[in-house]
């Protein structure tokens, strides 16, 4: 929308370096806790349906490993250069795995 010329020009929203840092940390926190969980859950699904062993054994193995995957995801989120990279690094593999699961007909949205 075009602002009427008479209004005082709004200063562009500029965050201080400190605020940017805080936002980055908060964003990474959400990425680590939520994004990390989603990625770990998806990897667990993929392993559960694809490991070459009895079905219950595959589920058991995958679920045992899930916390390791989660931990690695969290470490990566905080180790990488920027919050954006952290998000992309979680989202891209998540989308790829979700697509494979969808193609296999094994994607389930109910996590519980």
């Amino acid at each position, binding site marked *: 929308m075009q602002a009427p010329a008479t209004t005082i020009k709004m200063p562009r929203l500029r965050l201080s370096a400190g605020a940017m840092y805080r936002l980055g940390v908060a964003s990474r926190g959400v990425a680590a806790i939520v994004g990390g969980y989603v990625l770990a859950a998806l990897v667990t*699904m993929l392993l*559960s349906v694809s490991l070459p062993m009895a*079905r219950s054994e*595959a589920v058991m193995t995958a679920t045992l490993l899930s*916390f390791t995957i989660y931990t690695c995801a969290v470490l990566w989120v*905080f180790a990488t250069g920027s919050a954006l990279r952290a998000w992309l690094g979680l989202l891209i593999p998540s989308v790829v795995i979700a697509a494979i699961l969808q193609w296999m007909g*094994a994607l389930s949205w*109910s996590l*519980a």
Partner: protein
Amino acid sequence: MKEGFRQSMAWLHTWSGLLVCWVLLLVFCGGTASYYRSEITLWMQPELHAAAANPVSSEIAASAAQAAMTERAAGATRWFITLPDERNPATQLGWSKPSKPGEKKKGRRGNFHSEQADPATGEVLSKPRETRGGEFLYRLHFDLHYMSAIWARWIVGFCAMFMLVSIISGIITHKRIFKDLFTFRPKKGQRSWLDAHNVTAVLALPFHLMITYTGLVTLMFLYMPSGATAAYQGDKDAFFSEAFPRAEERKAAGVAAPLTAFAPLVRQAEAKWGGKVERISVNAPGDANATISLSRASGRDMSTRQPSMDFDGVTGKLLSSNGEVVPGAAATQGVMIGLHVAHFGAPLLRALFFLCGLAGCAMVATGALLWAVKTRQKQAKALAAGKRASFGLRLVEALNIGAIAGIPIAFGAYFWANRLLPVVMEERPKEEIACFFGAWALAAIVAQLRPTRAMWRIELTAGAILLAGLPVLNVFTTDSHLGVTLFLGRGPVPVAAFDLVVLSLGLLLAYAAYKLKPLPSKAKKAAPAAPAAATNSNTTLPGAA
């Protein structure tokens, strides 16, 4: 983050640890105490101390239990019998009765009755005072209290995940793990706390890592159900019956038939397993379709998954046996849970687990203190100029007092309440637990009001008096105090051991409080709230509860 890899991991270690450390400390303290769950329960029921703990064979105990149940549990739909072992001298009898028509449903355990019986005769043991005993501390460490268990388990799991991340990032941060194991520089303020944190963390590192991961594994299908959902198209029951196979339940026929004797079945099962029978459960006792299930006592191997055998309740014919061959991944899970609960532990190993648990408490506590000391150091200039400590620092310091010095007070109050509340009392267990949380809430609130060095001393002293005072209290309230158990050598060993352990923990707290003696008046103005900067105490100082 913006700096190098190691720095970002150090940052992650600090914050993932700090944010949940107070909950973790409670979980660690409760979990550590749970290694002696039965012993604590025994201590809290002095009426049972005198019960002759003459060990009898499983066959005799099973026969006695059967006679007792036939007499007392007529008309029950299910029987549950737990045979005695080295740590639980009494036979546990339990049964559930069908709810009478028209009767209001009393919840899941509403129609469940239980009692403790003499293993040799099956007679009811003199009814002990009601208490949740060690069971409360065990439940506390994953179900918390005053909230729904599911929520609590999610909270504890969330904190455990933080802990796992904190441990791994802590290891990455560490350059010289081996060297730090032998490094302790006392009386150097922040340095000393860092060393103490390193020593308690690194010394028992395999334990900390194991206990955190296996803790998550115990509830892994709650935390991470996606695998089972995906592989079984949402049919979780199908997964559980495949992963944890059990005999099919038979419906009661409605025709009365006498129950076969337990003893030969127990003999048969023990001969097959080469291990003792621990639990006997009977479905539809007295019915033509009754089923008797026996399961092996844990402790013969590391796994919590123990085989079971099902017999026809009338003929005694073996119907099925389960769980003798467990596939690899399932066995791995069983062993991981087994490692967490350590039922296999012989006394010495159990003691080692307990000590590692204490080291875990100390690790969490020193970590929390380290943050406060470091942050106070950073604000030293502002503080010297008369400014007040930042909100975060004040909050953390107060929470540290409330948790590190407060939890021992809560434990102490719980045990004191057990001895001092009237023996016969409505809702006695509830009142004991109320004392636990009441004392803790008081300690935590007072700490929030005045998070000072003096407060550390007051609360540590209170904890010391409460814990070290227990053996003394025992002299006045029971006949199985140290004077009898230790000097005359009579009475249950676990009770004596409990007294000695709380006594030493109390003395440790007293030592910590002593180390916090008031600073000389010159330094008083700049006195730090954390007990750290000037004087210092040893590694085990705060978290030992």
